[in-house]
């Protein structure tokens, strides 16, 4: 207790006898037990997540003899790009032997209109739902949200009939329509939440300024919503590119998307299994979404988080 009174002299400087003891920045130990555990766990888990990608890459660069001999984790002794060439241009599905390139271009042809159409429709939906509510608009929205939880299997067959009636079954546009429909719930939610977060005052100001439904949409809302359009695009490009079920149901073999063709190549029972070609094909298919993922980074995360958390 006496220390307390003696701790400062008149100038507020610590009195002698108390200079030792903790002072200044607290020392940090980089290798504390907690830190080792923390980083150890994170690194081990990271290795688990990264390993399949590594295996895909190294396998696709090895020749078949080397694969049969050795360790799937080992880097290639002799790098060969032959499997990539074969996967892209020569691999067979059924009687066609022109490789995955066909599926790639099919996917692109499906992707572009699907992404444009689904985002255009959903953004207008979201805008109407947040700013121009009318009698029944909330009912449609509720059904749409519930629809997101209905297993596709329940709806696929009647849609086949509908598309057949419209003459779109088995065509590219039929699949585009299906992607637009099934992308609608999540995208509408995304845009609705975004447009709702824009201050209502802005919308009111635009109305006082005499802008109508489309005027406000194109001249006020869309320019403000560019980031969310990018998020929606990322969401749709990866989603549609990765789709398998709709591709297999609603298209014919000539316009099968890449995923369907990939599965047919790898899981075909004929011939000798060429694991290096299979992995090259798998990587090729994964390349588009992976590129988007690694390039867009934060926006990708934002997209899935926005879609998920608020839903």
């Amino acid at each position, binding site marked *: 207790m006496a220390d307390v009174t003696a701790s400062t002299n008149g100038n507020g400087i610590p009195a002698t006898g108390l200079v030792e003891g903790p002072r200044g920045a607290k020392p940090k130990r980089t290798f504390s037990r907690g830190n080792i555990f923390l980083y150890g766990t994170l690194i081990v888990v990271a290795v688990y997540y990264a390993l399949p990608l590594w295996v895909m890459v190294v396998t696709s660069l090895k020749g078949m003899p080397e694969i049969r001999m050795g360790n799937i984790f080992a880097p290639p002794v002799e790098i060969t790009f032959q499997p990539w060439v074969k996967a892209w241009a020569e691999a067979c599905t059924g009687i066609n032997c022109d490789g995955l390139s066909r599926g790639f271009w099919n996917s692109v042809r499906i992707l572009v209109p699907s992404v444009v159409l689904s985002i255009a429709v959903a953004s207008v939906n979201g805008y109407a739902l947040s700013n121009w509510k009318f009698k029944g608009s909330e009912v449609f929205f509720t059904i749409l949200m519930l629809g997101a939880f209905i297993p596709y299997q329940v709806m696929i067959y009647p849609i086949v009939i509908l598309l057949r009636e419209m003459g779109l079954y088995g065509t590219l546009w039929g699949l585009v329509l299906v992607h637009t429909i099934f992308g609608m719930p999540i995208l509408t939610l995304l845009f609705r939440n975004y447009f709702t977060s824009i201050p209502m*005052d802005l919308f*009111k100001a635009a109305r006082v300024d*005499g802008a109508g439904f489309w005027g406000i949409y194109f001249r006020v809302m869309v*320019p*403000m919503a560019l980031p969310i359009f990018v998020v929606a695009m990322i969401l749709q490009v990866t989603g549609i590119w990765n789709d398998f079920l709709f591709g297999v149901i609603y298209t014919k073999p000539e316009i099968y998307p890449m995923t369907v063709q990939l599965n047919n190549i790898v899981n075909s029972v004929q011939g000798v299994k060429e694991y290096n070609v299979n992995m090259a094909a798998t990587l090729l298919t994964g390349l588009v979404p992976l590129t988007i993922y690694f390039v867009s980074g934060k926006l990708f995360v934002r997209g899935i988080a926005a879609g998920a958390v608020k839903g």
Partner: protein
Amino acid sequence: MHSVSIRSLDLHFGAVKVLQNLDLDIFDGEFLVLLGSSGCGKSTLLNCIAGLLDVTDGQIFIKDKNVTWLEPNERGIGMVFQSYALYPQMTVEGNLSFGLRNARMPKAEIAKRVARAAEILQIEPLLKRKPAALSGGQRQRVAIGRALVRDVDVFLFDEPLSNLDAKLRADLRVEIKRLHQNLENTMIYVTHDQVEAMTLADRIAIMKGGQIMQLASPAEIYNRPGNKYVADFIGSPSMNFLEGMLDSGRFTTSGETLDTTAYPFSGSTAHGPATMGVRPEHVATGHEMQSLPIQADVSVELVEPMGSDTLVWTQFAGQTFRFRMDGQAEVAPGDTIRIGIDPAKASFFDQKTELRL
């Protein structure tokens, strides 16, 4: 001539009655403030006038024209919002001209009006900037400018200064007042800030629960509040209320009997349960109190020095009582002070109806 007239306006959101049978006439060139706490319906009323909300029943006239069913841009109004509501991707110039472009006005006329508004508001150097590059005060100026270029008869302000800090708010308040003096337009101004209301308004409409409690000049509202709610709402620190009985010129509260003969009762005979309201700044001390009919000794419980003046908390007639003293007065808890009250400056309210007596 009335600039804006509202006739028995009703607005219901489902079962919730936000506005009920509301009538209001606003004179040409008047500065009217709608004042009330949040949820009182003041912003809702403004949105109805603007045409941004559809009314359930009733009519709205602007310049003697029935605008009840007209679109906002057809009503001859300009509006300034609390959150500025500037279009972020357009320049200041684009923001100012957006409404005019929508109305397909000739380019030369647009340029003329934008230049004039920019001159009045002194925002000419900012015209090429985006809103993100402006300060809060500059943004609100642009927002006012957007209403200005429309060259309309009626300006609507929806809490325009609430997002600004205290100093800027005071500056812009003066500017709005100056603008009104120069333009002589009708202005309807919504706020929850009583200082803004008192300083700006020609008349204040105090709202509560979708109804207007009192519509009068600031002085009238301050000196002769029409009911207890208004009396409590206006003034800071707020009015002291003493519960008691009125009987032939005397007010009895917790054993104390006060002489109220100097109070101008509106009715001939006032008696029965009543509430006496005394503003803290109307309580006198020192030599001023010696001439007043009501005097008492009170013991100081708490002192809040505020610089310019000092607020003293005491008990009077067994009830909490605050009064204001000069900032230089030396008081400490425990002191006994003699105070005086002028009944002519007080207010009496019926305890049941809460209306002014």
